């Protein structure tokens, strides 16, 4: 076995050892930033619906907080449901004594957004009426949760 071969084996072994470490970090990486492949598929569905959704004028794009301490906050609507409440893992985190920790939920269904009360103490109001079961939300109609008022906009 020549010196050169042994040297190459030695360097190759160290390289493979470090490659293992890097591969392990790559597996961990998804913990921190989410799966690497996530952005690519997410972009495609957005591109395709755009021409389709344009003729449909009623499709909401944004959720806007029009009243309460968080006034002016804008959340862009995607395919994912939005949770509202005092819990830290909610999409819209309220610091409001009148809101429950998991107060309400908004989710898309057949091009419509639907609001559902999650058994809150003080209730969710769509315009003036209390939301007792999942109800479709028209554009620009205020949803009231405690002191906070939110609306769907284009």
């Amino acid at each position, binding site marked *: *076995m020549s010196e050169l*071969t*042994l*040297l190459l*084996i*030695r*360097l190759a*072994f*160290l390289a*493979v*050892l*470090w490659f*293992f*470490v890097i*591969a*392990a*970090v790559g*597996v*961990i990486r*998804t*913990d921190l930033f*989410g*799966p690497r492949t996530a952005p690519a598929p997410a972009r495609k569905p957005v591109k395709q619906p755009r021409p389709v959704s344009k003729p449909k004028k009623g499709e909401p794009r944004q959720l806007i907080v029009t009243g309460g301490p968080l006034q002016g906050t804008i959340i862009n609507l995607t395919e994912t449901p939005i949770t509202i409440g005092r819990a830290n893992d909610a999409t819209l985190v309220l610091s409001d004594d009148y809101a429950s920790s998991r107060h309400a939920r908004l*989710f898309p*269904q057949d091009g419509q957004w*639907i609001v*559902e009360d*999650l*058994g809150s103490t003080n209730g969710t109001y769509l315009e003036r009426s209390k939301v007792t*079961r*999942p109800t479709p939300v028209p554009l620009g109609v205020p949803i009231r949760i405690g002191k906070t008022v939110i609306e769907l906009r284009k």
Partner: protein
Amino acid sequence: MTAKRRGAQLGMLAFAVLIVMGAYASVGLGINGKVPSGMLGYGLGLGGLMLAAYLVLAKWAPWADPLLLPLVTLVNGLGLVMIYRIELAGENLASAANQLMWTALGVVMFSATLIALRDHRVLQRFTYTAGFAGIALLVLPMLPFIGREINGARIWVGIGPFSIQPAEFAKLALVIFFAGYLVAKRDVLALAGRRLLFIDLPRARDLGPVLITWGISLGVLVMQKDLGSSLLLFGAFVAMLYIATQRTSWVLIGILLFVGGAFVAGQIFSHVEARFNVWLHAEDPALYDAVGGSAQLMQGQFAMGSGGILGTGLGQGYPYKIPLSFSDFIFPAVGEELGLTGLMAILMIYALIVERGLRTSLAARDPFTKLLAGGLSFILAWQVFIIVGGVTRLIPLTGLVTPFMSAGGSALLANWMLIALLVRMSDAARRPPPQAIQDEGLTQVMQR
């Protein structure tokens, strides 16, 4: 966000086994220019064992962290290769076949723990039982007939031809005790009590049981001359107190207690004083030649020095010249053949194992799991620090095993159990919560 990631796990596991087989081949090529005949046997043995461990994990802890098992496999496998290499060089005490057998028993222990312990939170019910078991295990070697003294430390229990070190298992039991006790008492420990200068002192009755356990374990260890384990338990105790109460004052008190204790022990016990001397004056020729002097420590340093950045290559150095190169000094032995680059990779792998443990602790939902996972990860990290710090002369050398690498059955079994507990907890922490009942309302809407 969490996924099972079984594919990644199996892939990494296969990768780890392949690296170990490559290392075997490299050892053979380095020593006598041909691939060793035992390579396939060892490789397939390790591969089969890990496949079994993987299947158990996939069946009984499907949501467990995907990296813990592959990372441990690689460290364990590299330890096996190094022991095999030192055995080939003619060191009689090193036996790779023995180590492989203990690895197999370790995997059996790992599987048994995973299968028997479906919910780790039941351990909380055995808080005091675990505390007593820990102390009993520590005292066991002091008893006549079954206790054995090997290499000047009375830390062994003999069962027939086997000797086991009960202290390795005691540390698991004591961490469970600390976790269970601190969960119940952390609020009083953090809040009740007087404030002295800028340090919050807890009430004596809250701290009593912990201090007593700690005192007994340290006393026993000092009498058995097992400095490494007593340092390990002390560190685990301070770290868990800190995790439970989030008071920096505990860390300060701990460091002060430790420095004071080390100073006093150095004055009183000759074997502690000798360790300090060897640490501070290792290069003194008189001390180098003395019996129980610094020869071993300096041999380790020479080995790492001759390894340099890239190492001499597996099978081409002289790591077997270091006394106990297959157990306490396996780290410098690896350092000689794989160099600083290899040592850093191994330290990174340990760091990743600890990171996975701490991540589990962060993701866990109940305080007992948080403390237990934090404590177990900490003792693994602390163990690596104590031994690596010892052989590199950062801190005084105290005999401790390098987790998963050193030859030694008890430590291997205990550490595999530790990993099983972490796997069990990560399974619980990563498992998605059950679906909300409220979703049934949604179904009604769709039926409309």
